Structure formats: structure tokens, C-alpha cells
């Protein structure tokens, strides 16, 4: 469910539509930090993220008249910065991608798991709240093959629905689901040495 526009957002949209000189600066100052964080998460490169943010804010200003107010301004801007980041990502030369298969669970011929699966510490949730642990998790996410990492970021972190992610990445919804599942499994494998200390 989309939420209604707040009074502050409504005033900002009105000012942007009227072309008030201070309105764009207010847009940048009030929303830029959060949007930069989104671009940095998606691009994993500070300079590319800054360029994507600039592209997104200029695009938002140019198209503010098409903003119909049914979604919150923050939601609309979020979508624009994601699109700008994906455009930036497409413009970059692709490197050969690491295979994900080695990070997926292995099975015996009869379909059972090939090895024991360690039990993760119950304190894992507490540990994941610590800054140093969050840094490790972010590094592991960055270690995923790019075409899987981007799906994990869009679905699990940016919380974009499957159909929309499929449109954004020019994939089928089924392919998005498969990539998300494999990305989560691969990340679980990468985090296992960190959280899975108590083997069965």
C-alpha cells in the first residue's frame, strides 16, 4: 500500500513544479543522503554512485510534473535512483563473472545433502547488529557474482517486488526468483564460517 504524501512533501513538490530556486536544493539536501546510500549499495563504487545520484536528482527535477502524488515522494525518488544506478551499471564494461555453483549446496545422488550443515549460533542476530559484523556481511555480499548480488540487493534490501525487478533487469519473474534463491544460498555459504561455529 502506498502512503499519502505528507504536508512537507506536498509543499516541496509544489515548489519544485513552480521552479522555485531553493526547491531543488532542498530536494538535494533532504533526500540526497538516503539516495546516495541506495546508489552505493547497488553499485559498490562511491564515484559511480555519486554520478548516479546526480543523474537521478536531475531526472527527478525534469520529470516532477509527471509525479502524480499517489506514491510518497521518497518512494518515487527511490525508484528513480535505482534506475539511474542500473543505467550506470549497464554502461560499465562487464567483467567475466565468477561462477556461483561452487557456493551452492551439494547433494548426493539420492538427493540428500552431501555434508553436515552446521548450526548457526543463536547469537547470530545479536552479532549482526555490531558494526564490525555488518562490515563483514557487506563484504560477503560484495563477493557474490554481480548478476546475483544485484538481484539480492533489489529484492531483499531495496524491497522491490519480483515483477518490477524483472522489468528493471530485463529478466523473467521466474529468473529473478531463481537468482534470488541462489544469491541467498551463496551468501549463506559465505557467511557460514562467520556464524556457523557450532557444528552439529
Amino acid at each position, binding site marked *: 500500500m502506498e502512503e499519502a504524501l505528507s504536508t512537507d512533501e506536498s509543499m516541496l513538490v509544489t515548489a519544485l513544479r513552480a521552479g522555485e530556486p531553493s526547491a531543488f536544493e532542498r530536494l538535494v539536501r533532504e533526500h*540526497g543522503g538516503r539516495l546516495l546510500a541506495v546508489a552505493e*549499495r547497488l553499485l559498490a563504487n562511491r564515484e559511480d554512485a555519486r554520478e548516479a545520484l546526480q543523474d537521478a536528482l536531475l531526472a527527478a527535477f525534469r520529470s516532477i510534473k509527471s509525479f502524480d502524488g499517489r506514491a510518497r515522494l521518497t518512494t518515487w525518488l527511490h525508484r528513480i535512483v535505482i534506475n539511474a544506478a542500473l543505467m550506470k551499471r549497464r554502461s560499465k564494461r562487464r567483467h567475466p563473472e565468477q561462477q556461483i555453483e561452487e557456493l551452492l549446496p551439494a547433494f548426493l545422488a539420492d*538427493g540428500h545433502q552431501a555434508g553436515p550443515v552446521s*548450526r548457526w549460533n543463536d547469537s547470530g542476530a545479536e552479532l549482526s547488529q555490531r558494526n564490525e559484523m555488518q562490515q563483514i556481511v557487506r563484504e560477503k555480499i560484495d563477493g557474490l557474482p554481480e548478476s546475483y548480488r544485484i538481484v539480492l540487493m533489489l529484492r531483499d534490501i531495496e524491497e522491490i517486488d519480483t515483477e518490477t525487478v524483472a522489468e528493471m533487469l530485463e529478466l523473467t519473474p521466474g529468473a529473478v526468483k531463481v537468482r534470488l534463491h541462489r544469491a541467498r544460498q551463496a551468501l549463506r555459504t559465505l557467511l557460514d564460517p562467520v*556464524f556457523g561455529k557450532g557444528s552439529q
Partner: protein
Amino acid sequence: MTCRDALEFLDDYLEGTLPLGQSLAFNVHLGLCRACRNYLDSYRKTIAASKAACTQTATQDKLPEELIQAILSAKRDEAPNN
């Protein structure tokens, strides 16, 4: 149901979209298979850990002043009348 089947169904199971028959078979398998119970638990924690790690950065970032000025300058260059 084998471990391979169970792990294929994890997302549908977590989203509650697994058909009733498969959901029952999944739960029976979980009851018998410690490896898959551990896997499901760690899979859930993986999703939670990635959310915690990435959303933290979203609230702490403030745009550097020089970047703000660069964006404002780019807008002036793009549309001098605005």
C-alpha cells in the same frame, strides 16, 4: 521429499506460497532431517543479516557539502533558467 527438493522450496515456504501438500511434505522432511532444519535456520539468518548490514548505512549517510554543490552546479549548467 529429499533435501534437494526441500532446499528448492525454501523461498516459497518462507513466503507461505507453498501448496498445502508440499508444505506438509516439507514439514515432515524438516522433522526428520537435522541438516535441513539447520539450513533453514541459517538461511533465515542470512536474509536478516544482509538486511541489518545494508540498511544501517542508509540512515547514517549525510550528503557531503561538496557533492551538494556539485549537483547544484550541474543543474545550473543543465538548465540556466531554473
